[in-house]
């Protein structure tokens, strides 16, 4: 446990919080009862299919849909010419997309037209009958090429193909810092495109009725954002749009943006007057997916002989693909993630997100912090070796701490990174193993961090709301827009209600489906924001309901409502053993409420939370971007087969600053899943692109880890720092936990065979090539 206990939150004994409780929606899932979007059927539903560009960059001269329209069974076709000419995109200053391309296409996969037909086969056949006349344009696929003068311009507004603007952040005097350093090291790394690979592809069922109202069901991380975008594009007021979010088969950041299939389903339903469902095939999903960017990092670090870091510099260029998506926001975070883990006096970060004719990239678990730390933690491992210092000692010498204001102005009110590092060092046997393992075996270390809750900016309130409804029998309905895709937030917030009202979790019923007409708004599951954002709203709703009950009970006990507490089914007067009533038993608090004129049933508690707005500089990336920050450290042990180059991850030791562990079962699940995803990214996952064409759009060609790829031993532990901004002190950790995994493996591979792969993933062929080179050099 950390000694850091901040105002407002103290270590307490909890009855429900912190327990290993199973998921409340678990039986729904394991019995096959849980309904996902594609499981929902409306009578007369048409199947929708989308025609996409075959060219990476081309002008659309003409689209002829006449043959397709004549095909029996086709009910409606839309093209860029007959859909709203309104641009959309995540933030208003980066909007660069139309629902369907109308003037030109910018990548292979750019959506051109959509068909609704009585079944999917006919819709597909109709796509083949649509004739598109293109004029091919010169294209560019490498971000460094795309920035050069004379490169093809992909968007009219973007000079040198730079998305939004160049970002430059300088703190201190970096050149002086390098001059004063005893040692300076430089490295260049290139990361790869990685796909989300959630098992449920993106989809939408849309039903536009005769009253001009749109109802839709979709697999999403933000049903309210989808409703907003549809309202904006279709010019339908939000009051006439009802979004439903049923169970969701994974997201990992890839379902937070409204995309063409959702918009086209709505447009086709409006055109045909029938329900229309579009479910992407796996291949379509690989093409439409907006996964991790390919980054080029040039890193420079200057240090004293004793390992004190004096200056750090990063030149980052990333391939955004054909549209901005969330690229610009990701670049902003990259600035902050460069210095969040250290105390460094002199820092320079120069970054560009660059348009190319590759498929667009977007948000994926950690918002690309994982690539930055993969590069920087590899670089730091080499720096430590050059200096003759143990890598973990180097980090401990420079690590950021609680209360720090980072170079990028992040306020690290709680920060347990030092404790995480010490924990994994001790738990992994690092001291005994580092440098002492036989050839072919290696151990590696890395750190990670992530935002844990988004801050509001002026045009984008990041608000959460919750309703708690207490019924006469003592049962409680929790109404929340928890965008749970497996993290367990529905269950954790039910734990919150049980804890705060002092009742049993079995008495809490939480909604599994989010219906935007009924459920109070929450912005969604991104930025690891749910734990703090929605958590605070749930807590506020509980307190509002509790206050109403306490006022009634206070009269009975001749006490003040402020002096009452609720725990384990009883409401009692603090410090007085006699002053107590049962919560729900006959004659207890709820019986008193029934006869009281002060309250009526159901007792409704309302809660709302909106973080403070803080200034943010879009030119420098400077500003406190999150409510809190999560931290993690990992050690990986690997075995490299020097004959085949194959890497096997033997075990992983992990420690994460989660603020407060609300439900260890779910935390372990997040960590173990992140370890799997990190192994895939380190060792084999890569979207293979050739002139903008994805060569491996299937699970047999794009490999993700199976049960056999996992280490047989994983040790996940938690450091509790009790963040002052959050319910019970907890911080969202789903993103941070993946961050160190690839770098820990890369460093372990170096430890095992002494070769460094600077272009990821670390595949056997690259290892063998480097081992051979090294052998020839006689090292």
């Amino acid at each position: 446990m950390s000694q850091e206990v901040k105002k407002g939150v103290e270590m307490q004994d909890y009855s429900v919080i912190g327990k290993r409780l199973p998921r409340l929606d678990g039986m729904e899932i394991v019995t096959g009862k849980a309904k996902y979007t594609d499981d929902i059927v409306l009578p007369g539903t048409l199947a929708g299919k989308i025609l996409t560009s075959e060219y990476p960059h081309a002008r659309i001269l003409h689209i002829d849909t006449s043959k397709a329209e004549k095909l029996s069974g086709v009910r409606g076709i839309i093209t860029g010419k007959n859909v709203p000419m309104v641009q959309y995109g995540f933030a208003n200053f980066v909007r660069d997309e139309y629902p369907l391309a109308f003037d030109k296409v910018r990548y292979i996969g750019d959506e051109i037209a959509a068909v609704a037909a009585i079944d999917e086969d006919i819709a597909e056949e109709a796509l083949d009958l649509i004739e598109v006349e293109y004029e091919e344009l010169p294209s560019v696929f490498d971000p460094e090429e795309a920035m050069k003068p004379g490169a093809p311009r992909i968007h009219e507004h973007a000079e040198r193909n730079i998305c939004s603007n160049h970002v430059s952040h300088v703190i201190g005097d970096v050149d002086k810092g390098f001059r004063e350093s005893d040692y300076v090291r430089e490295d260049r790394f290139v990361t790869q495109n990685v796909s989300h690979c959630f098992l449920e592809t993106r989809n939408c069922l849309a039903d536009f009725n005769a009253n001009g109202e749109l109802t839709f069901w979709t697999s999403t991380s933000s049903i309210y954002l989808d409703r907003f975008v549809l309202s904006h594009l279709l010019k339908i007021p939000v009051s006439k749009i009802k979004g439903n979010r049923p169970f969701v088969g994974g997201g990992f950041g890839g379902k937070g943006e409204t995309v063409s299939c959702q918009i086209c389903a709505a447009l086709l339903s409006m055109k045909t007057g029938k329900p229309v469902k579009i479910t992407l095939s796996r291949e379509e999903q690989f093409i439409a997916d907006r996964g991790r960017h390919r980054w080029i990092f040039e890193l420079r670090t200057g240090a004293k002989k004793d390992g004190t870091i004096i200056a750090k510099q990063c030149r980052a260029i990333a391939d955004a693909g054909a549209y901005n998506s969330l690229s610009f926001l990701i670049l902003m975070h990259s600035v902050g993630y460069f210095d969040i883990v250290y105390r460094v006096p002199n820092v320079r970060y120069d970054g560009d997100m660059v348009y190319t004719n590759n498929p667009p990239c977007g948000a994926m678990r950690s918002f690309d912090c994982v690539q930055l730390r993969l590069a920087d933690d590899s670089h730091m491992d080499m720096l430590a070796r050059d200096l003759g210092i143990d890598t973990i000692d180097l980090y401990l010498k420079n690590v950021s701490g609680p209360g720090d204001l980072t170079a990028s102005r992040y306020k690290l009110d709680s920060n347990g990174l030092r404790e995480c590092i010490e924990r994994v060092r001790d738990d992994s046997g690092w001291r005994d193993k580092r440098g002492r393992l036989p050839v072919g075996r290696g151990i590696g270390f890395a750190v990670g961090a992530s935002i844990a809750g988004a801050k509001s900016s002026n045009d984008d309130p990041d608000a959460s709301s919750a309703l708690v409804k207490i019924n006469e029998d003592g049962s409680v309905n929790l109404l929340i827009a928890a965008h749970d895709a497996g993290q367990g937030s529905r269950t954790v917030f039910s734990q919150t209600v049980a804890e705060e009202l002092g009742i049993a979790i079995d008495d809490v019923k939480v909604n599994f489906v989010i219906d935007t007409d009924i459920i109070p708004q929450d912005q969604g599951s991104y930025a690891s924001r749910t734990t703090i954002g929605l958590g605070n709203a749930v807590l506020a709703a509980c307190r509002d309901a509790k206050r109403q009950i306490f006022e009634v009970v206070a009269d009975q006990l001749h006490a003040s409502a402020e002096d009452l507490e609720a725990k384990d089914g009883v409401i009692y007067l603090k410090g007085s053993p006699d002053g107590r009533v049962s919560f729900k038993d006959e004659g207890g608090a709820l019986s008193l409420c029934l006869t009281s004129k002060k309250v009526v049933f159901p007792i409704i508690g309302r809660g709302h939370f909106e973080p403070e707005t803080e200034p943010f500089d879009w030119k420098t990336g400077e500003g406190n971007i999150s409510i809190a920050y999560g931290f993690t450290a990992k050690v990986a042990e690997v075995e490299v087969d020097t004959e085949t180059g194959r890497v096997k991850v033997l075990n992983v030791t992990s420690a994460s600053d989660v603020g407060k562990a609300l439900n260890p079962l779910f935390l372990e699940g997040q960590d173990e899943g992140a370890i799997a995803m990190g192994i895939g990214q380190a060792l084999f996952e890569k979207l293979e692109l050739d002139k903008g064409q994805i060569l491996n759009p299937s699970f047999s060609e794009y490999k993700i880890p199976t049960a056999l790829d996992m280490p047989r031993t994983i040790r996940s532990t938690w450091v509790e720092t009790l963040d002052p901004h959050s319910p019970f002190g907890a911080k969202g950790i789903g993103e941070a936990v993946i961050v160190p995994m690839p770098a820990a493996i890369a460093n372990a591979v170096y430890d095992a065979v002494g070769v460094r792969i600077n272009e990821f993933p670390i595949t056997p062929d690259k290892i063998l090539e480097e081992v051979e080179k090294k052998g020839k050099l006689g090292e």
Partner: protein
Amino acid sequence: MKCLIRLKVNGETYEIAVEPRKTLLDVIRNEIGLTGTKKGCNMGECGACTVLLDGKAVCSCLVLGVEADRREVITIEGLGNGVHPDPLQEAFVKHGAIQCGFCTPGMIMTARKLLDENPSPSEEEVREAICGNLCRCTGYVKIVEAVLDVARSEKGGRDAGLLSHR
């Protein structure tokens, strides 16, 4: 032209006219209306659509509906329900072996088949058995734990109280 097939699904007999190119997965989901079986790739690569066909675990997206004529299918709905769940279903909940849940029905069917054939598998045998079922959320750790837990308790009798606790 449609073909008339007769198949038994979860103990009930269905007579359905299906187009010859429709997969068993589509027949189960769209004709019979059992949506617990999931479509993750439709290419036999992810295992989300795994069902038992005459007792054998198959990707139902790789079997044509007409091939299931006169055969018996068990889907996740037939394995157990909220009132009478299969021990695997309970163990998956208890161990936190579910996250988004999309791979879960197929994963449980594969695990059921494994335990029917090999009541006391080693950890490696469990991993081997489920390696055709992709999960992007869990890292498989808790799935393996859940299956091994059921193996231990089934071997010792359901009420023997051998369930392990972490």
